[in-house]
């Protein structure tokens, strides 16, 4: 094609593109919608983190906490964030986590399914007795992964003083991978608004350990949590998600983390 053809086509295309206008009102409305969505998202993210804390504490109770609970010392759990802001880079999280856990941690930037690191936190978990006295404390590191900010998969790492007790919790699957015991399970969660009461049926399920109930949701939500647990180099790892990933998918992701992939 000649330069003439090129320049004329370019002129036509530029003229065509420039003829399309974003109306002033629409432009303002879009910006307003963006800010509304960002604000909503911010609330949602805060809410999600609250929910995540409920799950993480529940996970701790299901695992190492079982020992302490059984001994009658721990009646509940509390979680406090080390800082107000999320940690946004993997390098910063690795450094902060290595300092807190006194270990040389390598936290993956991406999981095998392509989910990318989005943000991280370091919380202090407290085990409380019936009088709300702090019986045990330990730091726990969280790395959230996902696509476009959804933070749908969480990896938590802790140097708990409690070890995962063998035979005290039931798992959907268990296997030894590279000399590491991988345990995986699904759990049913019910999240309720602050003032809502669970039904009698849900209370019964909760009493049987078949349902975990959390509050703080704007509406009733039922979720399935898929978790994988393992211990490596004296650290407890938990990988969990609410997403549609299967338990098998989660085990595969856990193996990728163990392999450093």
């Amino acid at each position: 094609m000649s330069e003439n053809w090129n320049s004329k086509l370019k002129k036509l295309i530029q003229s065509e593109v420039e003829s399309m206008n974003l109306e002033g009102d629409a432009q303002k409305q879009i910006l307003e919608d963006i800010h509304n969505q960002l604000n909503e998202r911010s609330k949602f993210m805060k809410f999600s983190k609250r929910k995540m804390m409920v799950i993480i504490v529940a996970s701790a109770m299901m695992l190492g906490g079982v020992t302490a609970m059984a001994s009658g010392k721990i009646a509940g759990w509390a979680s406090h964030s080390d800082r107000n802001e999320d940690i946004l880079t993997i390098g910063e999280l690795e450094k902060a986590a290595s300092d807190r856990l006194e270990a040389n941690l390598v936290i993956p930037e991406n999981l095998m399914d392509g989910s990318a690191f989005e943000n991280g936190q370091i919380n202090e978990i407290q085990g409380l007795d019936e009088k709300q006295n702090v019986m045990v404390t330990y730091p726990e590191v969280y790395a959230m992964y996902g696509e476009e900010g959804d933070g749908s998969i969480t990896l938590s790492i802790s140097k708990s003083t409690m070890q995962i007790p063998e035979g005290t919790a039931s798992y959907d699957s268990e296997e030894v991978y590279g000399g590491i015991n991988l345990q995986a399970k699904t759990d049913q969660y019910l999240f309720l608004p602050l003032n809502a009461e669970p039904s009698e049926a849900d209370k019964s399920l909760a009493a049987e350990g078949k349902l975990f109930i959390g509050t703080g949701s704007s509406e009733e939500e039922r979720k399935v949590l898929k978790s994988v647990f393992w211990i490596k180099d004296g650290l407890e790892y938990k990988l969990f998600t609410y997403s549609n990933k299967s338990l098998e998918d989660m085990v595969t992701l856990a193996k990728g983390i163990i392999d450093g992939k």
Partner: protein
Amino acid sequence: MEAKTKTLVERMIKDDKEAFNKLYKAYSAKLFRMAYFITGNRSDSEDIVQEAFMKCFLHRKKLRQPERFESWLYQIMVRTAWRFNGRKNKKNELSFDEILEDENNIRMAEAIQKEDTSGPLEQILEKENAIELRTMVNSLKQKHRTVILLFYYNDLSIKEIAHVTGTFEGTVKYRLHTARTLLRKQLEADYISKSEKEGVCHE
């Protein structure tokens, strides 16, 4: 990129929403035009602009080099538009991909730059108005429309287009060639059809 824009980008990265608003005002109209060119739909384009700027703010910390803000924003918009269009029915698109999807055509794409043709095409170009061009552009696949847009409107190099679209340079070259070939075919066909109606004789 102007120093003023770079400063705004740096401020936005540090969570300054006012800087984000200013960047939005500076780039939203252009992004809208680009989205419209790719989708051919005003309402979709407004949604794409909204989604692209949402992602821009949410992922601002991932922009390591503020001076690359524009191409980063184009990248977000193009991929958002593609995903948006992916959800829609593609029945109006032509499927000419397989025709030119080989090495020969990449070479043809390079050779076509040097080709010196003249004839009815240039006359057509002078006669065609923007509405006819839009109809023709709409008949292209979105990836071809995108390459045409980035090449002719944004003046991006093949390398930059490859980066924005997440493809190899060779792929960009053949898509550019495909798009121009299809446009040319349609322009010529349209010209012949018009000329026949007007009684013009082609030798």
